[in-house]
């Protein structure tokens, strides 16, 4: 009956993984791809693929969290998506980012503009930098998780994120200067 108990546990664990990380996968897919339609497809494919390989992933994880593995599947599928369709990410601010706290209208407009600029800046970064920022800020992943998802060392990941933020900061500063 050991096999039966294993199967039961496996199914329960997969349901838990799905329930816990659906929002993470969808958020990653949306910010990576830039539109809801394709983000839905990518999320669906990610979980279907995860389901097929879940037993092995769990066996090889040695008890470590499986979120990086799940995001890595989404990352690989997104890479195929761009390769197949030769597309670059789009940014649809209105659907993606809503500033919910009450603000005076003028401040709200200003913040929306800033958010729009940041999203545009993120989408113009090189792929690896953009992905690292999405994982850090949209998914709240730590360096270790991001490193596992990207297949890099923790040190290299820390440098990658630092450089991504510096590049974005520089780009935003240049745009601000150009606007003046």
């Amino acid at each position, binding site marked *: 009956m050991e096999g039966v108990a294993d199967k039961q546990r496996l199914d329960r664990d997969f349901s838990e993984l799905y329930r816990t990380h659906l929002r993470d996968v969808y958020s990653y897919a949306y910010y990576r791809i830039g539109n809801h339609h394709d983000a*839905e497809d990518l*999320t669906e494919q990610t979980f279907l693929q995860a389901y097929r390989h879940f037993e092995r992933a769990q066996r090889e994880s040695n008890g470590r969290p499986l979120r990086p593995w799940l995001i890595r599947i989404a990352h690989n599928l997104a890479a195929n998506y761009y390769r197949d369709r030769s597309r670059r990410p789009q940014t649809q601010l209105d659907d993606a980012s809503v500033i919910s706290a009450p603000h005076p209208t003028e401040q709200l407009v200003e913040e929306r503009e800033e958010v729009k600029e940041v999203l545009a800046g993120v989408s113009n970064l090189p792929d690896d930098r953009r992905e690292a920022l999405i994982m850090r800020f949209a998914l709240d992943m730590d360096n270790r998780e991001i490193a596992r998802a990207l297949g890099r060392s923790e040190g290299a990941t820390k440098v990658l994120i630092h450089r991504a933020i510096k590049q974005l900061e520089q780009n935003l500063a240049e745009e601000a200067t150009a606007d003046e």
Partner: protein
Amino acid sequence: MSDVERVEQLLRSALRPIEPPEALTDRLERRLSELTDAAAEELADWEISAMSDPRNWGRTGAAVVVGSLAGGALIVVRARQQSKKREARGLRALERSMMDVAEQVEKRFRRS
């Protein structure tokens, strides 16, 4: 606040987590259910063909149990769909779903 901290703050505002649309969760849960259904049917087909050989009778019994449990994942997902419609997500809903699952699995055992 330094420039880097300012950019980090902007990134947190810009890259907020996004809730998946209801249509996606429904579709995805349906697909996952279909997959577990297919696994259960595959086992059921194997059971029928294996029944003709007495050497497989012991294994067939085990396969019936496994088949019942393959459907278990399907029930987990369906139970969640039902409970999601009834009430807000949360631990209570999950607990109730798991009780539904146990009940359904027990029924399947009894049937097989």
